[in-house]
């Protein structure tokens, strides 16, 4: 039924199956939307946040999706600026995932703030000294960039592409994409960093606080670095999952391997940097404020020292080791493990840098505070996931996300369908039918 919209040369599941899938994800989405409206109309009392846990589950999710969405900027950077051509086969998907991550992040922020209708004050009454202001500006701008990067892909939909205006628009946008990619990389560098800065500047919170250069604490650079390292892993991970779900190969191995290798080195260097940062923090910074390492980790199982070991060793060194060795990244199982660990690691890092900060007592007579999210928080946190799945499904079905798909999965054309289409709508195309994703 919707075959007219489906890219040429690829096979898609029957519409009913697709709709069933969308429906299932849609139910989760609606649950999240319901929770979202509760938060908007009844207020944040719908959450289990409190005056100690002013940032909670979904802010973690916010930081996490931005970190893993870092695959878009970093892949873009490699593709357009450093000219890693092999990545052209995965760049579309990286952009799409980034788009989903960033739109989700903005949505979460719109739910998170106590006065959503005043959200724009952050731009209008901007405090240029606040890391959060930097985040808001860079995040919004970069979201704009991602939108611009995503649009040409939409324009490549078979039907839209038939409109000459859109066709030319898409073509021209491709031409200048390098400029946007560069802009995106620059913006991304700053907002990833400023998200790290959000935590690092909290000099009242010895768990979070780090010194640095100029206005930027070390966490600024660590965040950018870790996003660059783990974002591509997430891109690979989602690609792999997509391949599993649709049951076919979508991206050529050389693209995956290249990305994995670069990720691996980034992750290795990041882990070393993180280790040095932690060492300095534990031996110099925290003691100067009267804290020892175990003051930050003792007292309860959720925030035990295991969390630090897991983050640095298990989710840092291990995947880095796998990814930098050709044998490791070529072994499918090892690759799966490595990219999963890397993604878990960066999420864990964001968790710690959001939630553990709130849990650790600072005043000597304060206590560790635990928090358990309410269902409304869980639902609104899952909401972006459902939204992402749906957007991926739709994009995959109707847009030529994977330029190699047809090549990797050759199929017999279905003449009946083609004929039907042609008879319904005569083509007004002036240019050759299928434009590859890259002009």
């Amino acid at each position: 039924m919707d075959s007219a919209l489906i890219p040429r040369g690829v096979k898609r599941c029957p519409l009913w199956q697709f709709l069933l899938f969308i429906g299932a994800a849609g139910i989760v989405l609606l649950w999240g939307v319901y929770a979202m409206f509760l938060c908007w109309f009844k207020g944040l009392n719908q959450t289990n946040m409190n005056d100690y846990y002013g940032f909670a589950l979904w802010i973690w999710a916010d930081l996490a999706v931005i970190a893993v969405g870092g695959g878009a900027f970093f892949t873009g950077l490699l593709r357009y600026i450093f000219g890693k051509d092999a990545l052209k086969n995965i760049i579309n998907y990286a952009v799409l995932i980034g788009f989903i991550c960033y739109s989700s992040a903005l949505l979460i922020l719109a739910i998170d703030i106590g006065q959503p209708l005043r959200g724009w004050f952050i731009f209008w009454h901007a405090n240029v000294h606040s890391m959060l202001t930097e985040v808001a500006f860079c995040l919004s701008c970069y979201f704009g960039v991602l939108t611009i990067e995503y649009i040409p892909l939409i324009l490549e939909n078979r039907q839209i592409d038939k409109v000459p205006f859109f066709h030319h628009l898409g073509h021209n946008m491709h031409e200048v994409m390098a400029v946007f990619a560069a802009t995106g990389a620059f913006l991304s560098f700053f907002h990833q960093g400023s998200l790290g800065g959000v935590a690092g500047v909290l000099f009242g919170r010895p768990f979070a606080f780090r010194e640095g250069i100029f206005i930027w604490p070390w966490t600024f650079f660590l965040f950018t670095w870790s996003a660059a390292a783990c974002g591509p892993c997430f891109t690979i991970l989602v690609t792999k999952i997509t391949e599993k779900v649709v049951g076919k190969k979508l991206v050529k191995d050389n693209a995956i391997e290249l990305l994995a290798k670069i990720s691996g080195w980034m992750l290795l260097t990041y882990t070393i940097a993180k280790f040095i940062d932690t060492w300095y923090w534990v031996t110099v910074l925290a003691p100067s404020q009267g804290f020892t390492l175990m003051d930050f980790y003792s007292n309860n199982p959720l925030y035990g020292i295991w969390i630090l070991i897991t983050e640095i060793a298990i989710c840092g060194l291990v995947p880095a080791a796998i990814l930098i060795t050709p044998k490791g990244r070529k072994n499918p199982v090892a690759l799966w493990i490595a990219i999963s660990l890397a993604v878990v690691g960066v999420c864990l890092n964001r968790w710690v840098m959001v939630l553990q900060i709130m849990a650790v007592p600072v005043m000597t007579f304060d206590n560790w505070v635990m928090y358990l999210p309410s269902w409304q928080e869980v639902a609104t946190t899952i909401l972006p996931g459902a939204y992402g799945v749906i957007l991926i499904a739709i994009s995959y079905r109707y847009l030529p996300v994977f330029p190699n798909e047809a090549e990797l999965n050759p199929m017999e054309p279905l003449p009946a369908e083609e004929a039907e289409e042609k008879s319904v709508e005569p083509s007004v195309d002036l240019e050759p039918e299928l434009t590859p994703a890259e002009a």
Partner: protein
Amino acid sequence: MKIGRRGFLSFVIGGAAGTALSPLPWKLMDDSSIWTQMWPWTPVPEDGEASYVNSVCTLCPGHCGITVRKIDNRAVKIEGMKGHPVNNGGICLLGLSGLQLLYGPMRVKTPLKRTGKRGQGQWEKISWNDAVSEVVEKLRDIRSEGHPQTVGFISGFDRGTVSRLFERFLTAYGSPNFMRMPSVRDSYELAQYLMQGVQALPGFDFENSDFVLSFGSGLIDGWGSPVRMSRVHSAWQSAGVKVIQIEPRLSNTAAKSDKWIPINPGTEGALAMGLAHVIVKESLYDADFIENNVEGFFDWKNLVIDKYSPDTVASITGIDSRTIVVLARGFANASKPLAVCGRGNGTTPVNIDECMAVHALNALVGNIHKKGGVWAVSEPDYINWPEIEMDAKAAAGMQHERLDGAGSKTYPFTRYLLPRLPETIDPGEKNPLQALFVSGANPLYTHPDTQAVRNAFDKIPLVVSFSSYMDETAQNADLILPNHIYLERYEEVPTPAGMIEPVIGLSRPVVEPQFNTRHVGDVILQMAKGLGGSVAKTFPWDSYDSCLKETLGDLWNYLIDKGFWSNTGAMPPFFGTSYETASGKFELINKDNGSIPQFKPVSIEGDEKDYPLLLIPYDSMRLACGFIGDPPFVMKTVEDSILKGKDVFVELNPKTARNQGLREGQRVVLTTPKGKAEVKVHLFEGIMPGLVALPRGLGHTGWDEYLAGKGINFNTLIGPVEDPDSGLDAAWGIRAKLEKA
């Protein structure tokens, strides 16, 4: 016209761009944020002309001067009155919350008559005239049947014109049953009467003392006049006054003292005797004072030497003998030492022997009626009303003994024994109490063994409450005749609890009465008029206000002008009362009735086998446990180690908890011979092992949703223990057990 795909898309995109570039979205965005800044459901207080009214707070016997800030005719803030002799600008959290009581949901807004069963909370509104007529009718019946003595009156207060009007009304009517709520004042009054022969208020010159020995008095936990005591405490800190606190639990008073000496509960009297032993044995007493002002010293000395050696006392109190000796020396060698007894905030009396023993310590060091000492304070005598008209019925009624047994052969010198009332309200044929009026008191909450008191009340045919608030007693009354609250009425307020300096304040209407309430003084006058005859003649005034004005005479204008009257300059004996005993001296042994300071243990309820632990109450400034319940602001200050949700925590030493197999936060059932309640465990190193402590002031059923249903009322778990010598309730705790819930 045919719109093609291209045209349609151009239209949509162009439209979107056009809208975005137009002022519309920006204007909407701006407007919506402005709307959030002025949500109609978030109140905007109206501005107006600011003014200030001086008055007096009567939420407790502290009687602080207050200054109420008003905006037009709204009272918006209560502050302490600068320059007031009691509080000089300071104010307690309860006093600060007065406006929540004024405007709050706990107010009784109009006279109410019960329609359902007692305590069911079914009421009908009734006019003031009907309500008073109903009461008068009933009183007339009782009187005509010849039983005027079966009418009783419970008052939170027994001084000043309002209390005196109650008493006067009862006397003219023919009943001796005017009853004041119990407190440590009862013990002190009796001790002073027995040892000094005077009926006076106990006054403590803490401001000038340099060594304070407190046998468990929560001097900064709500005792006496709380703001005055806070100021005193600060003065002690600045001057380096030694303060020793003796009690089994680390109260705030103990924590702020120089030394906290934990003691086996109920053995404070023994310690006092032990200290006396050391002082006498080492001749540390004030020989001059003993010689000239004390009678019976040598006989008592022998008793003290014989029976209260430090070792003996150490085994009773659990305090080692060395500490006892050092403490005694420290006390006796101080230049202005002062000993005070009474547990917690002073809302419960103590056994008379204990009170006398502590008072005797003061006599030993000669600080009776001295700077920094203990005073028997006589009141400024401004109430001079005409003789009461007594007809034959009144005279006959007044011949009856009081129902509570105060002044009877058994308890000849005790003035009020309210806790004994329930047992005298016999289930037999004719109830000795046919009508009961309650004003400024909440016995169904504050009395020990609440259930027994409730059962007793159930047998009284008519219970009338004058409460301004829907408290527990009001909830269980037949009629509520709501008084104006203190911010809506005139009333003179005499000397605050525990002060030696006489002060008279004037409570005055800060705002118009907010509801259909009436001054209780006016209601008494109306009732008297309704009864007619000699009762009516006893009340020659048109209104309470005119009565007050006439009574105060010149003082009225002074009070209206200045807000309070005090006698700061004058020193005793202007208001101190000298010894009026047979010997004209301080009598350590009262020859008339043989009373003598000694230690007699009070055996509390429950046996050790079934109840291995001891339950004691504790008081906190943040939990009002008397007539007034915590308003919402005050509830906000209650710590989460005391109340969490609806659960109250009992304090337990970690050692006790270990023995009982309990841990922090655990839900347990607390059982005493009197009752049972679910509570949670809070481990606290500051309580003696073997003890369980429960705060007073929670577990209300009345008041409002901000207070009711939270925690447990301590009084439901304890019963009174009668002191055989005085009839006073001498219970200091009760045996208890804890079991996992």
